[in-house]
């Protein structure tokens, strides 16, 4: 059993009993092992629910619910928000909303175990915190818009749709990589 586990690089999963909460940030896992783990979670979702993962939809639901609270007439007359609010069920009682809450917990759990939870700002050596934050906001805005237009993001379209071999999803992945590589040069001050 241990030989198989070590061969598959998942010895670490069996070692969990000896896991302690680290203080010093630990190195990341072997990317392929993490990928297998992620793939198994995705597979489990298919097997249990008949659907894959996602993220953008959760935000859309929360935002739709928020807009309805703040400006109910606007929400109900909007062609877009009504798609989330149309029937009487609470838009927050949504699979993706609960899933994304789990993502936050899971991320925190892994980070805590590996000593990687720290108040910080990810940025390259040549940019200031302020600059980074502006990029983060604008990049987030662009990304969110693109995700809505594409009907999903890397979790929903790339991972889920990718595994299902859906044409639109693969088109999406290719487009993301293509444009990101092209634009990387222009934002190099942010990261390198």
């Amino acid at each position, binding site marked *: 059993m241990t030989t198989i586990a070590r061969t598959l690089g998942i010895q670490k999963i069996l070692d969990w009993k000896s896991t302690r909460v680290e203080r010093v940030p630990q190195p990341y896992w072997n990317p392929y092992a993490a990928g297998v783990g992620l793939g198994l979670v995705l597979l489990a979702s298919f097997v249990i629910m008949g659907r894959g993962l996602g993220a953008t939809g959760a935000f859309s639901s929360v935002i739709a619910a928020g807009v309805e609270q703040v400006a109910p007439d606007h929400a109900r007359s909007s062609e877009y928000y009504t798609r989330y609010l149309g029937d009487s069920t609470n838009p927050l009682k949504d699979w993706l909303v609960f899933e994304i809450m789990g993502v*936050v917990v899971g991320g925190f759990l892994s980070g805590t175990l590996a000593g990687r939870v720290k*108040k910080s700002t990810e940025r390259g050596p040549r940019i200031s915190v302020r600059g980074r934050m502006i990029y983060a906001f604008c990049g987030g805005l662009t990304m969110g818009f693109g995700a809505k237009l594409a009907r999903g993001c890397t979790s929903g379209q790339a991972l889920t749709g990718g595994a299902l071999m859906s044409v639109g999803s693969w088109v999406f992945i290719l487009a993301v990589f293509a444009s990101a590589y092209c634009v990387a040069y222009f*934002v190099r001050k942010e990261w390198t």
Partner: protein
Amino acid sequence: MNAPFFEFGLFGEGTSLIVAFIVGIGFGFFLERAGFGSARKLAAQFYLTDLTVFKVMFTAVVTALLGLFWLSWIGFLDLSRVNLLPSYPLPQAVGGLIFGIGFVSGGYCPGTACVAASTGKLDGFVHILGMTTGILLFGEIFPYLSRFYDSTALGEVTLADAIGIPSNVMVFLIVVLAVLGFVAAERIEDWSAKKLAGER
């Protein structure tokens, strides 16, 4: 056929939300394990210095792809009940291009932004705010976009259907391409490391 369990009525909507939460925990856990709570690591993909994004994503896809194929083949999983995402190649391509711009400049995607925020990254929080704004913006101008949004509706089409080859052949091709991609990725990373070392 026993799976998907939910589609066979093994449990109800309420439980499915708990399932969602647990699945989410697994999802977030492995994202962070891979290092995706770090925007620097995510962005490095596009500077060819660290190709973890490619490796993790495609390993996950291959794992799930093979899992889906074999579980269906042995008759455990009813693939026709698995929700295949409908394809709208044009808006998805354009959306992807826009997403890519945002991905490399913002440094996160929605899932990883949450992981970043949960591990203390302040830029993760700001990114989420930006994303929220972007989604709101989309919602507001949606009426002008809705025709484009619904264009090129191909329905539920797989790559295998579109090219006209059997799905098992497609699975094989994807796995082979992925493995070749991984080999290439390792080489590229070594080359990048040497280049950086040379510059120093």
